């Protein structure tokens, strides 16, 4: 087991927020937005999206809401507190949620969803790529503890 050296925290929440906004503007903003969106999806079910209303799948819509709510919260916490485990968990859930939503939009709206659907699928791919990078860094870090691996 790798015993991680943890230096004294010298950066406050404001510094971390600023760094998150400067370094990961996309992940930060997307996570921030998905928390209230996910909450709405959990509360309203398929009424939150016309695509899911067309399909008539309230359970999947609520599941999507849980993915967005939990994933967004975890990713936000991970990005702001600079904790890669939370970030990876949160972004994984968000990636799955974005894939689900993108597919739902294409299925529910057909050609009318050809902008939003592929857009969300692309977001899903980008988030998954970030998780892949984090895990690759973790793997390298575990393999060679002497090296410095930065997320």
């Amino acid at each position, binding site marked *: 087991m790798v015993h991680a050296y943890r230096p004294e925290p010298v950066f406050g929440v404001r510094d971390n927020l600023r760094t998150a906004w400067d370094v990961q503007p996309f992940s930060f903003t997307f996570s921030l937005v998905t928390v209230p969106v996910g909450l709405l999806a959990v509360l309203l079910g398929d009424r939150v999206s016309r695509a899911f209303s067309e399909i008539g799948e309230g359970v999947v819509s609520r599941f999507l809401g849980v*993915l967005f709510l939990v994933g967004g919260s975890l990713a936000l916490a991970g990005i702001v507190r600079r904790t890669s*485990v939370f970030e990876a968990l949160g972004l*994984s859930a968000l990636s799955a949620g974005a894939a689900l939503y993108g597919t739902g939009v294409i299925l529910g709206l057909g050609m009318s969803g050809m902008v939003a659907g592929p857009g969300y699928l692309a977001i899903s791919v980008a988030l998954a790529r970030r998780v892949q990078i984090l895990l690759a860094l973790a793997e390298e870090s575990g393999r060679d503890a002497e090296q410095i691996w930065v997320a």
Partner: protein
Amino acid sequence: MGGLTSQFVISALAVVTGGGVIQGIVFILRRRSDLANVDANTEKVRVEADRVRSEIAADLASQLADEATRQASRNLALEKRIDELQAQAATDRSRYETRIAAEIAGATTLILEVAALRNELGVARRQITILENRLNAAHGGTN
């Protein structure tokens, strides 16, 4: 795509996604110590970067202060030299002005003397002419 088919597809995808998310969570949690190591390294690099930034800022401020002092000293020396040169120029100008005034005065005296000599020469020439006339008249009388 029909409503039931869409419902089936999205439900199946939700199940697959749910399974994938659970697998992902397990996979990520297994690597949490490595991920924590990455965080620690990132934090170390941030701290180091912050320290280097502070050092560079302090070094730059020190260099700027030194440069400002050096420039101020140089400016002072230059101002002193300019004052010296201005004083020297004023002295030289005064000396040359006096000398030029003396030269002009000398030249004026010479011009006046020349004019006086010319007058005397004119008078002498007239007297010579008168004397020559008298001499000629005297010669004419004896002849």
